């Protein structure tokens, strides 16, 4: 399977990346990392991701998503480039409620491919 994992540089997203690498190793899936701007600019996120991939000794293409990350993720998946989109599955509010950022919401509502949220 061809998997695109979306990473915005948050701690949750970096954990999602590590977990996706482990799964891809076990399953033989093709993994592509899509980086986009969260709190940090996309260039910082890209460096972070390359460092993490290096530490994990895993080689995967890293694509920068400019503009609207949700829209770009869905568009690429639609064009048949990917079978599945993997994203961090939500953060917790102060009192423990699950919340999703706008990219996760957009992808869930618009993607025709399978979407996996990692918690």
């Amino acid at each position: 399977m061809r998997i695109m994992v979306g990473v915005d540089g948050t701690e949750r997203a970096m954990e999602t990346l590590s977990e996706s690498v482990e799964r891809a190793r076990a399953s033989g899936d093709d993994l592509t990392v899509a980086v986009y701007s969260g709190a940090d600019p996309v260039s910082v996120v890209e460096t972070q991701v390359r460092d993490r991939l290096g530490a994990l000794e895993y080689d995967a293409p890293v694509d920068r998503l400019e503009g609207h990350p949700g829209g770009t993720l869905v568009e690429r998946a639609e064009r048949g480039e990917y079978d599945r989109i993997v994203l961090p599955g939500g953060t917790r509010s102060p009192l423990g409620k699950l919340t999703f950022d706008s990219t996760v919401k957009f992808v869930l509502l618009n993607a025709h491919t399978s979407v996996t949220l990692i918690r």
Partner: protein
Amino acid sequence: MTRNYPDEAVGGFPRPPRETTDDEGRSIVVGHATELDALVELYVDFDPADRAQGIPPVGEDAIREWLERITGTDTVNMTARHDGRVVGHAMLVGEDEHELAIFVLQAYQNAGIGTELLRTTLGAAAADGIERVWLAVERWNDPAIALYRRVGFESVDNPDFEMVMTLRLETEA
């Protein structure tokens, strides 16, 4: 996170403790939560269908762990009791802004208890000097949204998960 708040402040909420009669004629006491175990019991009995955005968690250990986290200093925890048993719980958790959630046991819903519990919780918060209260509600949870509107909450952002809208057209045939 910074959220937009209404310009006008809403006041006049009652302070705990309060004793009221619900719409079913049951005597309900609303006051500050006193023991964790009674809250654990409430959530162990909770219908999974009435969970909201992942809370309460499932299983006694996870429930206890969650409650320990949200009952610390600077939080407000209010219970509604009937015959000594906790049947509802409202909480405020946060620092600059306080997040609100409220749960009422299934058999005690639609009897005005949620409104009493919510109003009294806001009264206690106002007394504690809490100025900004926010909440997240699933867009399909109409009874909860109506309750929050009734006490003065306003929706501040564009809805995220979609709303279904319909239109009946007058046909010309």
